[in-house]
């Protein structure tokens, strides 16, 4: 029997019309729809960042007006948080890989999956409309009463856009939870799941349970904007701190939505590049669940100086230290996985190691902020800005790119240029550190955040940071070039170009629409049962 004649077409070839893409039920095509959209928003948010760094290169506020600057940093935050970081790994890599990794044909609810993408696009449309109509200047955190009673910008439009995109998040989480529970193939028991799948499970729990809180909080903001009455306005006897509690109850778990998937990706990249099982698989699993759960208990550490009681500060401080423990365990476990490994240093591994280093730095500085007495001095300064960029950009974005590189052959059927990819990864690592390390120093010296113009003594650190951002931006542009080139001229990939374990590597690159032509075989020895070299 000539298998080639009976082989089903790849999911990319299975229908070439626009309609076949916009009405697809295939999780892999939906992943690509998301990938295109979030790349667009990433560059939109990136342009905002570039404008900010341009303004901050000199102490005076001479590039744009204060109001424009405020709208720029708000736009940067809103777009990067909700339209890039939160959906990036779950909706692209998660959508593409989850059914493959568990041996399923698709997710549990494919039409809901497509609907989630349309919700994302609708939310994005509102955000772009807001931009075109003049923007919003409240910061992505929408603190009241400024956002409800004082801002003269398009708060309502933005809040509606974020409300809508939140439902995309909720439905994705729901879809993934049901998929993982009910659609694992024969033999794929819970403790044989790859860590990426576990991270999808953890992130889905958080997406499903935290995002509804944001939705209702935004609805209350909208009511206050529309009707001039609300529960967060002190002039009415309402409480602005109540807003902050509701907002951070979602937004702290939200940062774990951003980081848990990247940890899952890194575990896959490292095990495949080292060709060895992960050190401490069960501890890694419990860490994921631990981070997801304890992450719901620490929101008050964003409010240590907001007017909370001294006792609330004590409770949230110790809980914030507790949530750091599983992350520390993961860093040590990744390092230990290298021991007696068979290590290759392709671009995915460079991204993964870069992640471990930068995430570690970001996480350690988180401890400074968890120490409530130190936080008094460091909060609302560039120290915090640097802290979260180390985790979000140095961590999550690098993990996302590492994952895109690693699974590029599976998604597109092509191999990218390893030389260019390594160069871009290293340039990114260097540019990133030059951009953000000086910000730790500036913040520790007292430079407040969200400042359009700043005192001259912070000038040198800001010039360094802006210079770094030029390198970083260039590094982000490079992959567009060599990835696009690979689609036409890259070497065609076989099913398993890296020699990696995992059910996704047991099918063609790119896979057929229904993923597997024959039922995949689950290795009884676990997800990373590499043979010794």
């Amino acid at each position, binding site marked *: 029997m000539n298998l080639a004649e009976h082989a089903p077409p790849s999911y990319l070839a299975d229908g070439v019309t626009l309609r076949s893409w916009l009405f697809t039920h295939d999780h892999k095509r939906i992943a690509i729809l998301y990938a295109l959209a979030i790349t667009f928003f990433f560059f939109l948010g990136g342009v905002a960042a570039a404008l900010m760094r341009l303004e901050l290169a000199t102490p005076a506020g001479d590039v744009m007006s*204060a109001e424009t600057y405020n709208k720029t940093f708000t736009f940067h935050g809103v777009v990067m948080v909700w339209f890039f970081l939160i959906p990036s790994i779950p909706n692209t890599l998660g959508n593409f890989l989850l059914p493959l990794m568990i041996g399923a044909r698709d997710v549990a609810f494919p039409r809901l999956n497509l609907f989630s993408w349309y919700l994302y696009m609708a939310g994005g449309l509102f955000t772009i409309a807001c931009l075109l109509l003049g923007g919003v200047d409240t910061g992505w955190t929408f*603190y009241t009463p400024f956002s409800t009673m004082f801002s003269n910008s398009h708060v309502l439009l933005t809040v509606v856009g974020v409300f809508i995109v939140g439902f995309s998040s909720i439905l994705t989480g729901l879809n993934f939870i049901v998929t993982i529970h009910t659609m694992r193939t024969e033999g794929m028991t819970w403790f044989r799941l790859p860590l990426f799948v576990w991270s999808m499970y953890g992130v889905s729990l958080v997406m499903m349970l935290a995002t509804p809180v944001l939705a209702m909080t935004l609805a209350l903001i909208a009511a206050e904007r529309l009707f001039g009455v609300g529960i967060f306005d002190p002039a009415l006897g309402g409480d*602005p701190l109540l807003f902050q509690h509701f907002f951070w109850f979602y937004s702290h778990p939200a940062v774990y939505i951003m980081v848990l998937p990247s940890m899952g990706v890194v575990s896959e990249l490292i095990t495949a590049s080292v060709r060895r099982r992960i050190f401490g698989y069960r501890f890694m699993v419990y860490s994921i669940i631990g981070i997801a759960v304890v992450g719901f208990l620490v929101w008050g550490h964003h409010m240590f100086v907001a007017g909370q009681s001294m006792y609330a500060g004590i409770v949230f401080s110790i809980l914030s230290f507790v949530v750091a423990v599983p992350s520390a365990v993961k860093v040590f476990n990744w390092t230990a996985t290298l021991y007696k490994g068979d290590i290759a240093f392709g671009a995915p591994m460079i991204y993964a190691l870069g992640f471990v280093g930068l995430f570690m730095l970001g996480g350690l500085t988180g401890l400074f902020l968890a120490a409530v007495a130190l936080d008094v001095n460091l909060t609302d300064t560039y120290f915090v800005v640097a802290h979260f960029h180390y985790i979000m950009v140095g961590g999550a974005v690098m993990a996302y790119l590492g994952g895109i590189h690693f699974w590029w052959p599976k998604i597109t059927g092509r191999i990218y240029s390893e030389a260019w990819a390594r160069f871009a990864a290293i340039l990114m690592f260097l540019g990133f550190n030059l951009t953000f390390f000086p910000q730790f120093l500036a913040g520790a010296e007292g430079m407040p955040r969200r400042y359009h113009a700043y005192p001259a003594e912070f000038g040198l650190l800001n010039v360094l940071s802006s210079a770094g951002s030029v390198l970083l931006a260039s590094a982000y542009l490079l992959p567009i070039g060599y990835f696009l080139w690979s689609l036409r001229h890259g070497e065609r990939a076989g099913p398993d170009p890296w020699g990696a374990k995992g059910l996704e590597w047991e099918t063609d690159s790119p896979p057929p629409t229904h993923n597997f032509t024959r039922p995949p075989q689950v290795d009884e020895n676990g997800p990373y049962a590499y043979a010794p070299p």
Partner: protein
Amino acid sequence: MNLLPRASTFAGHLDAMFYTMVGLSAVVVLGVFITMLVFAVRFRRGRHVDRSGESHREMGIELAWTLVPFALFVGIFAWSIVLWVDMRTPPSDAATIYVVGKQWMWEFEHPDGQREIDTLHVASGQPVRLVMTSQDVIHDVFVPAFRVKQDVLPGRYTDLWFIPTRTGTYDLFCAEFCGTDHSRMRGTVVVETPADHARWLATHASASLAARGKLLFTRFGCAGCHDPASAVHAPRLDGLYGSTVPLADGRQVVADERYLHDAIVLPASEVAAGYEPVMPSYKDRIDESDILALVAYLKIRGQDRETSHEPR
């Protein structure tokens, strides 16, 4: 924090903690980095080295690097709490200075009536407590050289305290985004020797805050109900500040600055036991700095100090 002057009693302690953590972090970063480097070189693909054998003491290692960090974290937490409790507990002899933040400026009011805009004069070596509120949105008082920071909210009072240790001029920033000119909402703290400060207070005196409050008490008609001779059944205000007030709903509250402030703008929220909720609200009719003057007056009303105060 290396170029940042240490100008309060907190600064030295907080910097010690900060640098200790930097040191510990450096140890961890170097440890992990060197380990990674050694493993990466030793076990790189193509190198012939012994990769056999499974680790048998995995659980022990895992527990070690779970519990040791946790123990370290608890230590750091405990150290931080000691400093935190101190920072949140102003001494009873601290001089109280009232602060009103509004878009986009700061007003400072000394107890004896000196008012300053954007600049705050204090004496070194003497504890100062700032009692702060906002006229509009949330602001924040941040003095990096003192290592203190506290959000300033509308509708309530928040506080912070410090003891300046070095004379000099230090930056004050607004550290909570508050609108267009947030980055221009800055100020200066001028720390003088006690002698210089006393001279400054003398030369900048005007009607004391409490005397101003007494005038406002009459101007806004408070005396109409709260004077002993009034026909209206209203609570007596003499010696009210600091006392415990039983409320109509059974609760008891201490009559502190917050209580007095809310009694003026939201009188129905805490009705005194035995009284009807008939007091009108003065929200939007009296601004925050005038409320501070009234509060200052109420603090001394009924005491000897009330009559001995005279405008200079």
